[in-house]
């Protein structure tokens, strides 16, 4: 079993899901012949045919609404957005329809769809190709928001997302698409959609992150380790519904927490994590809850993007700051 990349794991999960359930169909822009701009759907057309892998006309709002309609008919559509920056025209469908169809009809019509999009910066792409606004989706009732950070989790979480009877927004950290390889058995095992993953145990400090920033956060944890600080690293993975228990349990142990995300600070999802700590975890906190996040400005054009994205240095500085508190 060869080691595979995150984007190959997405491809593997898609193929698996399509093989095991013929209600699963894939559509979006350039997903068929071209296999997707990141090749996430490569080979699916050849294997499953044009009835199950469809290139739509160019409109994200359209194919999100199309997904709602075909899902209500019992299909399990997986729609690909080429970049998260192009999901905004679909937000009306996500918030006003996908998240509501089951509730609105008291379960008569349901909406088992998955909307996949690569997100985040760091690949020197043009404007609108590097955004992270997962917190917008995390505010939408009735949906799930899932962000993998490794090939294995991408495979397991995507399978679970496709099998889930409700709508899932599945955000793939494109900077990690080909960053590293991992052995991923194609065993069809899903990963849970309601749990954080503790990637590394530690007792001194909790680092909470997800998706694109997991790599930098793990690097920071390793650097801290060399300084004698044992950092626990939590990959939230499923932002909504949020598994607060795992985070609270960790901070109950460490008393210190740094939250790391690439999205802009204000009203980013890190705020939600901090808010939970400020409520249910307050008396466990020995130090302020710090957020290391993108600045509250527009993601710059590629020449400056490194200045926008939090790096290991900023995580380390925040962590070291918290270690000053006894």
């Amino acid at each position, binding site marked *: 079993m060869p080691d595979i990349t995150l984007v190959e794991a997405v491809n593997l999960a898609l193929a698996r899901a399509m093989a095991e359930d013929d209600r699963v169909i894939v559509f979006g822009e350039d997903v068929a012949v071209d296999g997707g701009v990141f090749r996430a759907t490569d080979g699916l057309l050849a294997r499953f045919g044009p009835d199950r892998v469809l290139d739509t006309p160019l409109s994200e709002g359209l194919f999100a609404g199309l997904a709602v309609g075909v899902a209500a008919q019992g299909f399990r559509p997986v729609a690909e957005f080429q970049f998260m920056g192009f999901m905004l025209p679909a937000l009306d469908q996500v918030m006003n329809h996908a998240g509501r169809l089951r509730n609105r009809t*008291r379960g008569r019509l349901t909406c088992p769809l998955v909307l996949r999009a690569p997100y985040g910066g760091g690949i020197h792409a043009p404007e609108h190709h590097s955004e992270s606004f997962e917190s917008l989706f995390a505010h939408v009732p009735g949906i799930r928001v899932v962000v993998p950070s490794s090939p294995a989790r991408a495979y397991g979480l995507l399978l679970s997302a496709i099998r889930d009877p409700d709508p899932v927004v599945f955000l793939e950290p494109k900077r990690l698409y080909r960053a590293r390889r991992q052995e991923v058995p194609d065993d069809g095992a899903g990963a849970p959609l309601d749990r954080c993953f503790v990637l590394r145990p530690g007792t001194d400090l909790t680092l909470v992150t997800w998706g694109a920033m997991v790599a930098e956060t793990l690097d920071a944890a390793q650097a801290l380790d060399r300084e004698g600080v044992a950092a626990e690293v939590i990959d939230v993975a499923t932002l909504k*519904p949020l598994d607060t228990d795992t985070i609270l349990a960790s901070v109950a142990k460490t008393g210190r927490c740094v939250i790391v995300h690439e999205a802009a600070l204000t009203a980013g999802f890190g705020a939600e994590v901090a808010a939970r700590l400020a409520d249910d975890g307050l008396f466990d906190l020995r130090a302020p809850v710090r957020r290391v996040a993108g600045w509250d400005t527009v993601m710059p054009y590629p020449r400056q993007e490194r200045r926008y994205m939090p790096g290991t240095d900023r995580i380390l500085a925040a962590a070291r700051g918290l270690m000053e508190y006894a």
Partner: protein
Amino acid sequence: MTDRVADFHVDFTRFLAPDGTAVAPLPGFFDDPTLRRLYGHMVLARAFDTKAIALQRTGRLGTYAPSLGQEAVAVAVGAAMVDTDVLVPSFREHGAQLVRGVTLQELFLFWAGDERGNDFAGPRQDFPVCIPVGSHAPHAAGVALAFKLRREARAAVCVFGDGATSKGDVYEAMNLAGAWTLPLVFVVANNQWAISVRRAHQTAARTLAQKAVAAGFAGEQVDGNDVVALCHALRQALDRARAGGGPHLIEALTYRLGDHTTADDASRYRDDEEVGRHWKEDPIARLRAHLTARGAWTRDDEEALLTDCAARVEAAARDAQALAPEPAAALFDHLYATLPPALAGQRAALVQAEADHA
């Protein structure tokens, strides 16, 4: 050097003139019982309207969107579809819903602001009312795609207003339906107004039927107060769609005789004279005149029908109002197939708060 590379046209069809006389022979399908049935549906739709407005005025119903004057459109849609087709309506099509089997009680529940009104026992795959204008058009495309992929001889019908034709999602869904030859019939209920904005201000297009030209399929205008012409056009379009002939657009020319909703005051933006002129086109009076002229409708029939409709509407309104509200937990119980553990606490808090209050 200039060559003509494409041309297009839009036709307008009517069978019944405003005074009820037939301007062309009616298709065979329209025998007396059929016409009487259509008439009964229109009268019932109007009776529902009347009661709904009354209930709203006394605070027992939420904001309500009447279909006064447009009954022919909704009833024709309901009558032309078969059970296995799927309706994807806007918010002024209770006439179609009734014909398809949604009950009066379910309709009252919905308009009283109770989600259970959407869980109708009737056409289980039909979509509920859609409030964000035009946003249901892509759903209809999705439904039609499902039919096509399963190779089923079924069609979807998507209804929206003249205002909705300005929305990009409506255009996008039409374009997709054309590109993928989906079994989908679009019906524009052109009632000449989008709240206070008149049709002419919505678009420079001479007809709304020609919106289909951009999507690569045919559109036609039909007299929207002539239930016969509407049924006929719809049946043709649906037959073609079910047989794999792809989408079609029908612009039904009608008029909104009432306020936009019970929250609207149409006298702010249009004068009585205009409305009065359009009363002469009333689809119900038109079909009644036609039936009467054919000898297929009597004063007694009329009285019996009105009495029956009023009684049914009264009973349904009573039943709907008698239904106790859902328990507080209902706010969470239909959100996901299974409530995520993370929300159990909120659900419990809501139920507790409710109990404390009681």
